[in-house]
């Protein structure tokens, strides 16, 4: 099966300058489990574009590092 990698505008943005290396709060609360830590940088990022724009990640982030946008297709 041939597969390609596609560029996608993802809804969740993380301000890396604010993201704490030891924290995983957003990752733990996301009902869709779409956030993860970049093993290289220790910063959170959106790993899968599967978002309900429900906002627990944003609400539980201790440093306000997260911004959830409405996904592009319905924005």
């Amino acid at each position: 099966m041939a597969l390609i990698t596609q560029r996608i505008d993802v809804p969740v943005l993380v301000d890396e300058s604010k993201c704490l290396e030891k924290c995983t709060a957003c990752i733990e609360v996301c009902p869709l489990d779409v956030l993860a830590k970049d093993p290289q940088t220790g910063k959170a990022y959106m790993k899968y574009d599967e978002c309900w724009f429900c906002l627990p990640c944003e609400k539980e982030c201790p440093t306000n590092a997260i911004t959830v946008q409405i996904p592009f297709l319905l924005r």
Partner: protein
Amino acid sequence: MNISTNTQWMKTDVLVIGGGTAGTMAAIKAKQANPDGDVLILEKANIRRSGAIAMGMDGVNTAVIPGHSTPEQYVREVTIANDGIVNQKAVYQTGKLGYETIQELESWGVKFQKDAQGNYDLKQVHRVGKYVLPMPEGKDLKTILTRQVKRHKVNVTNRVMATRVIVQEGRAIGAVGFDVRAGHFVVIQAKAVILCTGACGRLGLPESGYLYSTYENPTNAGDGYSMAYHAGAELTNIECFQINPLIKDYNGPACAYVAGPFGAHTTNAEGHRFINCDYWSGQMMLEVWKELNSGKGPIQLKMTHLDEDTISEIERVLWANERPSRERFHAGRGEDYRTHGIEMNISEIGLCSGHSASGVWVNENAETTVPGLYAAGDLASVPHNYMIGAFVFGRIAGTHAIEYLQDLDHLAPDREFLEAEKARIYTPLNQPNGIPHTQIEYKLRRWVNDYLQPPKSEPKLAIGLQNFIRYHETLDQMGAHDPHELMRCMEVHFIRDCAEMAARASIYRRESRWGLYHYRLDFPEKNDEEWFCHVNLKKDEAGAMRLFKRAIEPYVVDVDLHQEAYDVAVR
């Protein structure tokens, strides 16, 4: 990535699958009834913020509070709104037990709106009675429940997705699933199992094309519907779809239940009202459909006539609770309640007894037709049950399950069954370059729109059914790179099962009922003589999907359905 396919074994007395609204309550109640019993919640996400009420709720839709309404009035109203197809004894429970449920929630710190005298401040949204209790500060509902789960010493395993209930010797004896992060196989032995996995919210495809922009929390993909079916339990009213009037594209509630009592209402493009009641029902949805097809659409929730204080108050509620991202959606389009109506549309279809009636058959004790298997919340068929109904049936399921299992032992799960299920689950991981779940899901759900979205007709439904049956072969070609993708693959299996059930049940009932929910162009009239009954379905001994009629249980509250037909059209 290192994916472990080892097996983790667990043992408990009561297993609750899905720790949302109904599930957390079921577990707490089982523990209250017997603090020595072991109760385990198995949750695909994390119970702190999972399910429909992840960000709270802006109101209780079905609160029967003494002095405002009676359980009998409530049963009557729900019976009429469902064209008579209800098991009244089950609906009655929500009417009778809602009040003490609200009081218990309040004692845990959940806030409900009160008037100056300290009484619950109920609003009328339904056609006749006052059942809507606002919760302007309802945003932390789930964290409060999580605290109670811990306080009651319920065991919780997050990030494990159940895929099948194990049934042996005629009763439910556990479940299997896998860890959606580490990947390992999980087997839980239990004496009773309670399914609380919510709606099938990912059935139709949203018009935006974004798979997860559903009304329901998209983690709820019909998991429990499918698991109950494979466990041999009966499902009912599946042809009575969930279809909601939602903010176009955003696909969340606009929300007339909050704004209606402040003076907002649904109108056509000309600003005229065409329905006299904003309570969601199939009959209301049919009026919406007719209006949109008459050239008078689009329809909107209109607030422009309200004063500044009122609009700010509505914004305060809508932008803090339930679906708080509504605010940024409107802002992104440069829309404001003061100057713009909120454009609404008819949603794609889903299955949900919280809003309509489609679900796993349960009696008034939350028992399914399989001994030891209980169901509560959106997936259990107690029509229009909403959040309080989920709490009430969670309570009932928890207390009954713990009592039922007293003299029972664990049974060792059949090895062959476990191996077969393990092989089924891990197929996509063994072919990582198979077709991605996103494409497979998109096509399946587009067909759901093409062939199942009402109005329905037999030729269309039949093509849909054939496509869904053949789709088994397509599912076999799915590939996954990691346990997360595997979770989505297994959800697509659940969605396919629900699509087949929805097609078959819709074909079987050869009449129209519940307004738009089951509007058949080839049988446009209601036919009480032949169809005043439930349509139930189950997996028979040969493994085939069998449909049959189930008689309506005798009513406990008299209703004259000929005198009191549900009609909300403005003429």
